[in-house]
């Protein structure tokens, strides 16, 4: 393995010049109202808050802070629109959803740039992952709109009514698509709340909804923080809650909904095990580990944040991870060569940094790449912890940052036991050249998604969701329809 004499050097020599994505084509208003009943309207109490670029700490725009009264207005608009929308011919509903998908594709450059500006994620990801996948979700569910009777043969599929949807800041546009597309396809109307740090692409989506001619009130988007979300959850006129976010908030929502007639889906936290057997294709596994934990700065609920490496290859895998980390470029999210962008907010950076301190305090050995980071903005270098165990907090708790906790294992059973030894169960990964081992492991890991010899693969046709404290219900695929329907005999 590597010694001081034969260490690879990635830090000098030929470097990539800046290759920034231009922003002259994007239009961001100085201020956004609430999108209710087909129009941007001022909030009742006249309050607005700033949304900032986490890479520069500069203000991008101001968005309305929705109060209970505003949420009530949005729910009423959605209720009013529900009747005509549900009576519309399903194929017509489908046409509207296709239209959203196409307009989103046409404006994909603008969506990608704004997603990176507002959320800090690298343009390579917003351009190649977030925006195309968001459009794909609308395309996929548009197709289901007039085929629901085939999705659930022998039963009548009825929409629920008004869906309240609360989404996180890690994939702002994509999560909006995951929520809105199936809801509309099933004949529901929606009130959606984007996260307070990343409202801008939702505002652009509101413009798309208006330009697509979706009937007024079918899609309503209200901005605000936790209190706005609580107002949606507790509103008696809402028939369904779809929430993606932390397990902590998910618990509060579940408590609030207990005893009501509201249907709900919760997509919560995760602490996925990524398991590397000695017979895996090691170089490709290393790449999978990197993508599993450093994709989107690690702000991914299904991130492969717990790595289990079979002991006989652990030294080699860790060496190769360190080499690969040296080639990851941390910096300007708008630069096309950036691999790891800005941490989404000051608050999240503080959380991540507190975990770095906790991990070291617990006796873990921390390794970070040597990449330079900008002076302004919120940044965290890709980070590994070795010498940690299941008893350590950095192994147990969701950090939601570019921090990987590495443990070794000896036998299949040991890997499986430790992989399942977590309150979460959202995703997992297994790497081996042996097919039988893949099936054995994927059937035994208690997680909603388990990837084999790959990681973080998403497709609208595939259901996604968690076991245990990672949530309930599934989004995506045929299963995703079920969450927005009442099935009758």
């Amino acid at each position, binding site marked *: *393995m*590597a*010694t001081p*004499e*034969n260490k*690879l*050097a*990635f*830090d*000098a*020599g*030929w*470097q*990539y*010049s*800046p*290759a920034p994505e231009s922003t002259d084509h994007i239009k961001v208003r100085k201020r956004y109202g609430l999108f209710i009943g087909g129009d941007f309207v001022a909030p009742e109490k006249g309050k607005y808050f700033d949304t900032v670029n986490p890479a520069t700490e500069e203000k991008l725009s101001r968005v309305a802070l929705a109060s209970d009264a505003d949420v009530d207005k949005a729910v009423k608009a959605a209720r009013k629109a529900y009747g005509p929308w549900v009576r519309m011919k399903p194929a017509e509903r489908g046409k509207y959803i296709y239209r959203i998908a196409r307009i989103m594709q046409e404006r994909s450059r603008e969506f990608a740039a704004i997603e990176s500006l507002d959320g800090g994620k690298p343009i*390579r990801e917003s351009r*190649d992952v977030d925006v195309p996948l968001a459009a794909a979700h609308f395309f996929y569910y548009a197709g289901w709109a007039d085929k629901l009777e085939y999705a659930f043969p022998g039963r009548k599929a009825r929409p629920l009514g008004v869906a309240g949807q609360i989404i996180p800041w890690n994939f702002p546009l994509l999560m909006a698509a995951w929520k809105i597309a199936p809801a509309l396809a099933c004949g529901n109307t929606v009130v959606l709340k984007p996260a307070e740090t990343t409202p801008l692409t939702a505002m652009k989506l509101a413009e798309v909804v208006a330009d697509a001619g979706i009937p007024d009130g079918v899609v309503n988007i209200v901005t605000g923080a936790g209190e706005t979300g609580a107002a949606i959850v507790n509103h008696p006129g809402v028939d369904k809650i779809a929430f993606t976010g932390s397990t902590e908030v998910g618990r509060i929502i579940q408590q609030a909904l207990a005893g009501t007639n509201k249907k709900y889906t919760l997509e919560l936290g995760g602490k996925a095990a990524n398991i590397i057997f000695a*017979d*895996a*294709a*090691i*170089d*490709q*596994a290393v*790449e*999978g580990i990197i993508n599993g934990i450093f994709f989107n700065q690690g702000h991914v609920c299904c991130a492969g944040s717990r790595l289990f490496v079979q002991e006989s*290859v652990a030294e*080699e895998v860790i*060496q190769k991870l360190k*080499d690969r980390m040296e*080639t990851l470029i941390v910096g300007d999210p708008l630069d*096309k*060569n950036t691999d790891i962008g800005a941490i989404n907010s000051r608050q999240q950076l503080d959380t991540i940094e507190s975990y770095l301190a906790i991990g070291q305090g617990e006796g873990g050995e921390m390794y970070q790449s040597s990449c330079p980071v900008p002076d302004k903005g919120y940044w965290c270098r890709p980070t590994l912890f070795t010498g940690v165990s299941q008893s350590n907090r950095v192994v147990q708790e969701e950090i939601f940052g570019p921090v990987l906790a590495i443990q070794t294992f000896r036998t299949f059973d040991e890997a499986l036991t430790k992989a399942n030894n977590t309150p979460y169960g959202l995703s997992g990964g297994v790497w081996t*050249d042996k097919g039988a081992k893949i099936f054995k492991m994927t059937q035994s890991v208690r997680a909603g998604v388990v990837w084999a*010899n*790959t990681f973080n693969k998403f497709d609208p046709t595939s259901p996604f969701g968690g076991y245990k404290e990672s949530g309930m219900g599934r989004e995506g695929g045929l299963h995703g329809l079920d969450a927005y329907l009442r099935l009758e005999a």
Partner: protein
Amino acid sequence: MSLTAVDTTTRLPDLSAVPAVDEVGVNERVARFQSRSIKTASKIEALKLVLSMIDLTTLEGQDTPGKVRQLCQKAIHLHDALPDLPHVAAVCVYPTMVGVAREALAGRDINIASVATAFPSGQAPLSVKLEDTRMAVAAGANEIDMVISRGEFLAGHHGRVFDEIVAIKEACGDAHLKVILETGELGTLDRVRKASVLAMHAGADFIKTSTGKIQPAATMQVTLVMLQAIRDYYYDTGRMVGMKPAGGISSAKLAVHYLVMLRETLGNAWMTPDWFRFGASSLANDVLMQLQKQKTGVYQSPDYFSKD
């Protein structure tokens, strides 16, 4: 995998210990290299580096001394309209043309590479291959590009392939040995990786993808697998081995993506003509055209660039 215990000079390592290769993962990594955006100063630097790494090649049945002399002129005068250009690393010819190239390149810092060992098929007895090699070296070649016996390799006779490389290496004397795996005939990336390990342990100074006579020739996928084999070998033994993708790299953009791959896999130490070469006949002019475009802002007609 650890091959640390293996005697690196004379023994065939246990090829079953070579790590598996996953083709889907390789494709994804390559796509990631190709998404790098190389602009402005870094592009100019890369293009010049590409030129300096080219083994300017002619390997045709119709080659004549006249053709080879013209190729050598091109090697010396890539495009005199652009100042500060590097020269190519080497010219690459058949053994019969080595003498001609030697004369044409006298006093120049340009290496003479010769293919040998019954190129391109390698279907000849070892004695013929050895003689082929000795003749090319005696005529003045300082780099020998040999082909492995793919038939023997595919039949599982790894030892014979290994022994042959060891023998050719000895026949090379001071000349550098590049071992052509002809990856287009090996069929899987797993075999590419195993053949790379075998060749390096047998003493290859460079490993090379292709003869250019078989499709597919060089691809970024096989080159990545070979670079990763070079890295692991370096970690195991401390010895650097060079890499030469050959055949099918004709655009400057693709060549720059190979450099991105090289930089992010092996690091800066390999970013020189001593450790990386492009085997190509038409790549140089596209690179020159791009350099001219960087300088003037417009593309010139291909007729302004000499075709030798």
